[in-house]
């Protein structure tokens, strides 16, 4: 048993000792309250600073005069003991740091607290309960000892006149009249899976991307919290319920039309995996980011029609026939033997359309463009075998198909049983591709990069695209694919894509170019500023 008269030391010791069985409750107050030791530590630092300054101001007593001016500032600081230091000579470092016997009274200036997990959590809970309780007024029943006086009785229990009942119009009736059936009603049965404000019931939160909706409605994921034993189908139902409350203008389909797939943080669905089993409880799955998809869309990966570009090449043209996905492998059967340069009907029709357009407008510019296309044959569909570079996983062999409308990246090898090496099938509308350039020419290989913007895929209603990394971010996100192949092939691909990009001159490309230009400008100005 020892007695201490330094209250700061005591406060610090109580906090560090994690006393949890103190019946007086005082220790709890100290622990749950503000960290005095930190406050005092800061005060001590301040005071030390003041003292040091004062010492320096008094040259007569300063150490500098005594020839110990070379003592480092830090050590100098340690030697100053203030009233806020809890027994500096008895500090816990004495026992904690036996390796440094010379610095027995040197305390850690950073004041890094010990890592307290369970205790901290327990204390936090306790503190919150205390705070909560402090806000609640408590009225205890007290047995009335003295009967109420007649004044009190007449004051509290006087007879009130009963007002004659009047015929009222109900505000609720009016609201009901103005609010006919609401879309969320069809999902009402799922409302009971709401996990928010559940007491003593395990819950689980998910970020759900409404990937089955048009792109403009899926910027933000819907955060839903359901009770942990809700099944995946209940989670789908509750997501529809919550979404239709928040967006009553958007009509969703039946719960059975949707499935939940694993998605990445940015909302891109990983199509390599099947939908989560609708009958399994959601607590079984560790994923928190999910994409709500339309089940019928799983069957048809590629959309049938391509929207008409806005940049002058008008005319409706269907490019490729409807492509049906064969299960999960995302192989595209109509593409397998398109290694050579064949002019697809679509391109022909596109060119025809351009010709007609030209004839109609007599635009010389377009004529030039057209001859350029014809010269390079850029708009023709052509596929190349290259390697897709990945940051983490091994590089995969893919086939890059380039046409006037889109770029497809199709994995050539599929290890059906090894999920980690499974690659995805990407398809990008050409209007979402912003840039293409050669990155590096190595001894026998050249790497090149395609920059694309997922948000510009909107009109393409394509949900397959995904990217490796965020590349450039002025206003929107750009993503990249990096490839590797032989010099000539790389050059041909880059030239081809750039020709098409220049031809299309899509808003995405213009934005990207402008952003790049701006970035260069700022860099330049930064540079010149620094030089001057």
């Amino acid at each position, binding site marked *: 048993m020892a007695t201490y008269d330094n209250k700061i030391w005591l406060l610090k010791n109580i906090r560090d000792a994690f006393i949890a069985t103190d019946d007086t409750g005082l220790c709890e107050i100290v622990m749950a309250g503000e960290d005095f030791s930190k406050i005092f530590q800061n005060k001590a630092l301040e005071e030390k600073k003041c003292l040091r300054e004062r010492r320096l101001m008094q040259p007569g007593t300063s150490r500098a005069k005594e020839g110990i001016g070379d003592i480092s500032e830090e050590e100098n600081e340690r030697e100053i003991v203030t009233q806020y230091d809890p027994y500096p000579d008895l500090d816990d470092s004495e026992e904690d740091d036996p390796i440094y016997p010379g610095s027995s009274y040197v305390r850690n200036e950073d004041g890094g607290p010990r890592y307290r997990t369970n205790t901290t959590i327990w204390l936090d809970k306790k503190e919150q309960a205390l705070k*909560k309780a402090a*806000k*609640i*007024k*408590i*009225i*205890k*029943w*007290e*047995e*009335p000892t003295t009967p*109420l006086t007649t004044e*009190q*009785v*007449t004051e*509290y*229990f*006087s*007879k*009130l*006149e*009963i007002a*004659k*009942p*009047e*015929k*009222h*119009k*109900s*505000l*609720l*009736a*009016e*609201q*009901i009249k*103005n*609010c006919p059936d*609401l879309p*969320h*009603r069809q999902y*009402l*049965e799922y*409302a*009971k899976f*709401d996990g*928010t*404000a*559940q*007491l*003593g*019931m395990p819950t689980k939160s998910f970020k759900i991307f409404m990937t089955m909706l048009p792109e403009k409605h899926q910027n933000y994921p819907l955060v839903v919290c359901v*009770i942990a034993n809700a099944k995946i189908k209940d989670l789908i139902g509750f997501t529809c319920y919550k979404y239709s*409350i928040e967006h*009553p203008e958007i009509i969703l389909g039946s719960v059975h039309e949707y499935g939940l797939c694993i998605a990445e943080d940015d909302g891109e669905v990983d199509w390599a995996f099947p939908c989560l089993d609708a009958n399994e409880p959601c607590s079984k799955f560790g994923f928190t980011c999910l994409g709500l998809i339309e089940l019928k869309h799983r069957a048809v990966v590629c959309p049938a029609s391509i929207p008409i570009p806005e940049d002058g090449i008008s005319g409706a043209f269907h490019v490729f026939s409807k492509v049906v996905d064969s299960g999960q492998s995302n192989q595209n059967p109509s593409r397998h033997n398109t290694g050579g340069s064949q002019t697809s009907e679509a391109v022909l029709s596109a060119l025809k359309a351009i010709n007609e357009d030209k004839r109609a407008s007599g635009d010389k510019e377009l004529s030039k463009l057209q001859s350029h296309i014809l010269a390079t044959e850029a708009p023709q569909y052509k596929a190349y075998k290259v390697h897709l570079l990945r940051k983490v996983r091994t590089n995969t062999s893919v086939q890059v198909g380039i046409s006037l409308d889109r770029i497809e990246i199709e994995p050539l090898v599929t290890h059906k049983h090894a999920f980690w090496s499974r690659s995805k099938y990407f398809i990008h509308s050409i209007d979402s591709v912003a840039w293409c350039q050669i990155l590096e020419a190595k001894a026998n290989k050249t790497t090149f990069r395609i920059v694309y913007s997922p948000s510009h895929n909107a009109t393409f209603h394509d949900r397959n695209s995904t990217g490796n990394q965020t590349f450039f971010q002025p206003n929107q996100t750009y993503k990249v694919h990096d490839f590797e192949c032989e010099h000539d092939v790389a050059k041909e691909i880059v030239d081809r894509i750039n020709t098409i990009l220049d031809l299309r001159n899509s808003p995405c490309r213009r934005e990207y170019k402008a952003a790049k230009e701006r970035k260069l400008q700022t860099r330049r100005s930064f540079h010149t500023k620094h030089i001057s």
Partner: protein
Amino acid sequence: MAGDSIGGGSQVALVTGGYDHTIKLWQAHSGVCLRTMQHPESQVNGLEISPNGQRVAACGYQHIRMYDLASANPDPVINFEGITKNVSRVGFQKNGTWMYTGGEDCTARIWDPRAQPQTRCQKIFQVQAPVNAVMLHPDQTQIMVGDQSGIIHLWDLRTDQNEQLIPEAEASIQDIAIDPSGKVMAAVNNKGNCYVWALGDSPHPVPRHHIPAHTKYALRCKFSLDSTLLVTTSGDCSAKVWRAGEWSLVRELRHDSQRWVWDAAFTVDSRYLFTGSSDSYARLWDVEKGTLEREYCGHQKAITALAFKDQAV
């Protein structure tokens, strides 16, 4: 959905509570749950919105709690303590001066939520059996206390004297209702019978009518604000609406999935009726048409109490 704040003072508010230890505030016309309040350690036996519409009182096992309706606080703002058993009903004096409760500790109590204990006007009324129902007379001077032994005590708050009514032997009184004009009193019992008395004309209640309302346990009875309708709810999975005066059945409200109907409330125009059921759904019925207008889903377990505050326009 716009134009309706979170059930604040002047707005329409529907509050439900039950076995899942939560109290939910609903946007009555859309059926969307606006907020969930915590009612830990107990089910909710009764709910009552304060006369100014700002707060809701909930009673349960050993607890009477008051919640703020206008704020987003999920915790109570006032806890009333000192009761060891179930509190079955709670109500307010018309001006909100005091609150009254009845419970299984065989008492009815007057609570005064004001701060100073010295000036509190607490009152207690002891009976011989657990209290199932308390109902304040519209003139605010009398509380009808219905107990499990089947006695209705007419507790005069000014004199503390009481008078007893025993409508049926060996039947527990489940609920008592007095019409807003103070002319009629109705009580239901565990045999499903409803008894009606005339009040006011003579100094004592005059038995007027007996309705064999339900074949099973009756749970609640309530008059509409214009005193023209009476609703009785029951363990027979129905709520029945009766025309006051003639005591004829206007509407029997049933639904395939509806189970015990624990509580009910009318809108001010007596056109719509809310019910809360063991199937965890609250429902809104059009009494005239007998149609189901809205359903309120979100509770995990049975809804045993509801309170509704309408706004006259």
